[in-house]
């Protein structure tokens, strides 16, 4: 199967410390991949390399056949590589509808128009309404983001991501900080992501990961030690060692 997104042998060092060593991951359209790993494994660096905040020391990143290794964040987003943020980054004084309309206008190439009325494009408005309504934000979409619940703000992050119509979506802990009663709403939204979209989720929450992912990758001390089926991840010796240390062997013996 041809890869829509290919991260090939990416390495990044800060001074003498190699934070990502020869990390390779391939994504096909429709993939649902979770990247997990203990604290300090280099997940954040990997996210920054993929989204263009950092440039790798070695390796290539290819999106839909184009080498994007040296492109900045903006160029990657416009090519269809979109992320959500671990901590919501929204404009407190604007409404969810404003955020989504702005994103749609960007996609249409109209976001920087000066002689136009923001909110006056009915096609953009209709699409924004559809996206927000499908995520259950019908009541909140006209209120300022600063006033709505955190769980709803997380859904706004997803709504923005969908408005981009991305090829590859990177979800950075989509349920982080959300009250456990609201997590099912996020999960339902994740289940309804477009089937052709390749999704990489970075998360600690193993319940969420196991329900969402069809494939799990494990990053330990900057190296990818596992990339395979969720069912196999807990049986993998390297993963057990990384998470449980020598106790991993003890529990297997028990």
């Amino acid at each position, binding site marked *: 199967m041809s890869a829509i997104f290919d991260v090939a042998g990416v390495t990044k060092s800060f001074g003498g410390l190699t934070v990502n060593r020869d990390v390779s991951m391939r994504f096909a359209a429709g993939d649902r991949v979770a990247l997990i790993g203990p604290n300090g494994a280099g997940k954040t660096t990997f996210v920054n390399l993929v*989204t263009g905040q950092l440039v790798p020391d070695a390796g290539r990143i290819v999106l839909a056949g184009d080498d994007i290794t040296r492109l*900045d*964040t*903006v160029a990657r*987003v*416009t090519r269809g590589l*979109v*992320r959500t*943020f671990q901590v919501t*980054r*929204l*404009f*407190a*004084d*604007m*409404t969810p*509808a*404003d955020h989504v*309309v*702005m*994103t749609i*206008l*960007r*996609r249409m190439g*109209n*976001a*920087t*128009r*000066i*002689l*136009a*009325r*923001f*909110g*006056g494009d*009915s*096609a953009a*408005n*209709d699409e*924004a*309404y559809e996206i927000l*309504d499908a995520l259950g934000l019908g009541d909140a*979409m*006209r*209120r*300022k983001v*600063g*006033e709505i619940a955190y769980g709803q703000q997380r859904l706004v992050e997803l709504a*923005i991501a969908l408005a*981009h119509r991305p090829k590859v979506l990177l979800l950075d802990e989509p349920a982080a900080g959300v009250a456990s009663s609201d997590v099912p709403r996020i999960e339902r939204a994740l289940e309804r992501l477009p089937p052709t979209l390749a999704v990489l989720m970075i998360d600690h929450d193993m319940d969420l990961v196991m329900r969402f992912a069809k494939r799990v990758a494990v990053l330990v001390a900057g190296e990818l030690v596992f990339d395979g089926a969720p069912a196999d991840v807990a049986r993998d010796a390297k993963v057990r060692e990384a998470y449980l240390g020598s106790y991993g062997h003890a529990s297997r013996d028990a």
Partner: protein
Amino acid sequence: MTMRHPPLSDAALGIWPAYRRDVYGILVVFAASIAGYFMFPDSLALLTRIVSIALLVLSLDLVVGFCGVATLGHAALYGIGAYAAGIVCLRAGITDPFLLVTIGAGAGAGAGLVMGAVLLRTHGLPQLVLSIAFVQLVQEGANKASAYTGGSDGLAGMMPAPIFGMFAFDLWGRSAYLFAIFLLVVVLAILAVVARSPFAMLCRGAKEDPVRVEALGVSIRPVLLRMYAISGAIAGVGGALGMLATQVVGLDGVSFELSANSLVMLALGGVGSLYGALGGTVAFMMVEHMVAAINPFHWMTVIGGLMIGVVLVAPRGLAGGLDDLQRRMFGRNSETRR
């Protein structure tokens, strides 16, 4: 197109709902300005100067209030507009007031692009320091280039033609003031459109969280540079108006002091609000005018006291304070609640 869902915003309802408040606002400003013409016939020179400075403060609001740029050098753009119009009037024999204002706007826009390109390399305190350096350099440049600018003596002797060939810029300043009102209304109308554009939304976003805007797929610098050019054009209009009204251009027009005062006026009126910028200018200059007449040495003390009072009572400036007051008097409504 039929709407199958509730409107997402007032702007979605059509042109009139989107711009209704701006139309009312501009009508109020127009009516108040005309009232000033009849109420203070002996102070038209002061009123014209207020409008001229108000254009500077409006232009400052575009970069400070909309884009979050920290600047104490914005008068550079005002002064460059004034000098450009003045020099062209003296040397090229261009005397048509509309053309001179256009030249002032063009010079201000060009200077805005340069200043923006310098200031947008950094932000926060270094940006503030750069802005001061910029205005000082421009002022020193104007001082040294005395062959063109008249140096510390300033530029004088401009003879702008009458407006439409009929209304001369005379000693009473009637034509100048009416011309000023015209420019103010035109600028406010343009800014009303700009302020409700997708472009302005991006600027507001970039002010709050540049990383988020880049993640939306928009490069910030070109957007902010464009706003700087627009801002420069409006400051340049203000400068050219000052030149036409007084027929003098001096180094004080490109000074740090004027830059700092315009920032105080903006803070007084309310950052991010066009009508706040206007109100702040009027309040500041009225107080300056009255108190300076009583005690020419200590008027700054009164301005200082006024500033402290505003910060304590209405931290969002006069416009923000009025907003809060209205909300307290007429109850809360969910659309505008903060």
